[in-house]
């Protein structure tokens, strides 16, 4: 198991290194740069050169990349070119916001999705199964941002139950916090719930058709116990899908944070791209890549724990 984890960690480091290079080159491939964003109404060549000099962007790109790597390895993400605020401070403010409502979305998605999937599989062919399938199809089809706007229209504008935007820290007002993340979590979690419902239903139906269930049934195992046995085995598929979906939550967060005006990580990324804020974009992408890598690593480990054949094969690679 240790060797398996070490192998995965080495691969993760390689991915992160490649990511630094790709994001460095990618952000500079965008038309325009920080100087244009900062120069205001009179972007003369002299002013642009002055800003580029101050930001160190007048140096050759290999030198810039080397400086960036050295800075990154020392744990320094630099300062935002758009606002002058240290990038680490921005991340410290923004990442927790995204994590809070993303975890709430995962909670919404997994509880609703897996429960509905199990019920649907257990009641295959009934009106309940058909209803859940249709609802999940709708959940899959509705874009996050549109659902978000509908929720705002209903719960904020018409009913006035929850604020349409903003984030309230839990430490300031727990109820306010819950209200501030409820709609974003639902808007983001519904899509996840739909995916998990379909996957868990499919995986569970597959397990219910396996020989060991048929044998257990022949020995007199009752329906609910059958499902419990099969559900555990179907979870490897669901865990894998959940891991993959967690990545898509990050992209979903970008949209949701814009709609609900949440000062989170996704919105930071969009704003920094729009202002060509190289240090922030680079840091945001690296953090995102790291999140993907860690999530996949955790999924691999959980998968290996659930299925010993995986860790044996992984350690031997």
């Amino acid at each position, binding site marked *: 198991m240790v060797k398996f984890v070490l192998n995965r960690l080495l691969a993760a480091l390689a991915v992160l290194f490649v990511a630094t290079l790709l994001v460095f080159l990618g952000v500079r491939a*965008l038309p325009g740069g920080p100087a244009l964003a900062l120069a205001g*109404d*009179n*972007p003369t060549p002299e002013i642009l050169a002055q800003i580029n000099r101050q930001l160190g962007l007048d140096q050759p790109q290999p030198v810039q990349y080397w400086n960036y790597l050295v800075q990154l390895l020392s744990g320094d993400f630099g300062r935002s070119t758009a606002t002058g605020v240290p990038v680490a401070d921005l991340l410290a403010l923004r990442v927790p916001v995204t994590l809070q409502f993303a975890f709430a979305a995962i909670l919404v998605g997994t509880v609703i999705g897996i429960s509905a999937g199990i019920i649907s599989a257990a009641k295959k062919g009934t009106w309940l199964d058909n209803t859940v399938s249709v609802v999940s199809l709708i959940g899959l089809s509705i874009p996050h941002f549109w659902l978000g706007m509908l929720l705002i229209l209903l719960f904020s504008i018409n009913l006035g139950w929850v604020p349409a935007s903003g984030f309230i820290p839990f430490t300031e007002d727990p109820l306010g916090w819950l209200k501030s993340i409820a709609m974003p979590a639902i808007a983001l979690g519904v899509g996840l719930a739909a995916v998990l419902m379909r996957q868990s239903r499919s995986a569970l139906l597959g397990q219910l058709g396996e020989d060991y269930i048929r044998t257990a049934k022949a020995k007199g195992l009752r329906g609910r116990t059958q499902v419990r046995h099969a559900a555990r085995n179907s979870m490897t598929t669901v865990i894998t899908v959940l891991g993959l979906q967690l990545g898509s939550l990050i992209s979903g967060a970008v949209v949701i944070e814009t709609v609900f005006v949440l000062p989170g990580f996704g919105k930071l990324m969009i704003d920094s791209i*729009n202002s060509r804020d190289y240090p922030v974009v680079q840091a945001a992408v690296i953090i995102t890549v790291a999140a993907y890598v860690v999530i996949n690593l955790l999924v691999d480990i959980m998968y290996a724990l659930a299925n010993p054949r995986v860790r044996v094969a992984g350690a031997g690679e």
Partner: protein
Amino acid sequence: MHKHGMKVLALLATAGLLVGCTSRVDDESALSAPDTRSVVKGGHARIAIQTDVDFLDPARANITASRQVFLAICERLYEVQTDGSFAPQLAAADPEVSADGLTVTIPLREGVVFNDGTPFNAEAVKANLDRARTWDRSLRTIAKNLIKSVDVVDVYTVQLTLNHKYSPITAELGDYTGLMASPTALKASGDNFTNSPVCVGPFEYTSRAPGDNVVVTKSDRYYDKAAVNLDTITFKVVTDPNARAANVESGDLDIARVVEPVYTRLKNATNVRPIKVPGEGYLGITFNVGNVSGVGKPTGEADNVMAQHPELREAFASALDRQALSKVTTNGEVPAGCSPIPESSVYALGLDCPEPEIDKAKQLVADSGVATPIRLKLNVSNAADSLKTAQVIQAMVKEVGFELEIVPGDYIANISTGQSGNFELLQVGWAGRSDPTGNILFKTGDANNYAGYSNPEADALIEAASQTLDIEERKALYRKAVETLSADNVFIYLAELAFFFAADKDFIVPEILGDLTMKVKTAGFTSAQ
């Protein structure tokens, strides 16, 4: 986005950075036109800004959001008025300009202190102007090039020596250059003034959550604090126009900029007041005729059919129906225009917009000998209403033989495209400025002359206008310059600008300016919150 930096149009919406200078609020709402309700003392206002602020430092700030916050916390030597003129704010009177135009003497308001208690006087003004013109991080390019020296005449009089005559000097001192920061705070914080800005203002800076909000609180030291109503203001960053509208409707914001369809819809709302504010900029199309190697570099003949065939540019212009464009894209809320200076300005040129002449356009295309369809690429902002404008233009010119491919790009990308000269046609919006000098962008070598247009006759007229004090003389010079440009069909002016806001029905902002800033000093609520 930038106040004046909104070069590439996010037509009237999302990018939100089309800014000009002052314009009167034209409140068309039946709920509030004109709103003369009294305002109570106290309250916390939540005002949307469309992007995060950049630097809360007068020498470094450049974007609209920063300008909006500065209007609450930082006063200027001169303040722009709703008619586009300037009135003394921290100055005590209009500047006295010497006969040769090179010496400007400014009397200052007495009995004023900065919000940290530092006295406001000539030494403070000198410290600020010297910083603007000499600090290597300063982005005040006009101040750098224009102001030769700043001298203290006495405690409340300062004198500027200019490198050359410059008629819009008051406008310059009514903009970022004229924002006065506390010399004590400048000395203490140096490059980091932006983190704890201190000025003379009705409000003082309290806190900032980067990317989310800036909070300001009523100042106890402000010389006119009796006129200030609100206790605090939160400037909330809300980039998405739909989210801004929803937040005003739900009561989570007190005022926000919205897009025209929302403005029109809200005319029937009961809890929200729609407001229209005329801008001082314009919308148009630039042809790349000479920008062959980038702005600021020598011009030549651009390698595209429109640069090589002036008659095709004329045909293109003749195919455009400005009134139809206004109706289709903005329900007629944004007026058609054919001048860089809006009709509401005292410098309005009074030019008559030409009617579309389809037959003439077709004939010009035929006479050019260029095979149709003539395929062209039109670079535009990726904002929804900017794309809508481009699509209408696309349909209009198709009739006479042009086939436009619309190439959308974000704000920075389009500026970059314009600067590099890597385009054929560019749909451009200019935020506008109170002084027409800032709207005439086709002088040879101008940083915003994306067309690479170079006409010595036009250059001479523009130069003469910038050195002339008399309004009528300046108008005549600008009119000739614009007519020269129009004859060459290098830039086609299509529309003026207008901005739309939605406000809580109980929140009153007496003035919203054409640069999207609000005079929050006397803003307030009609009843206690």
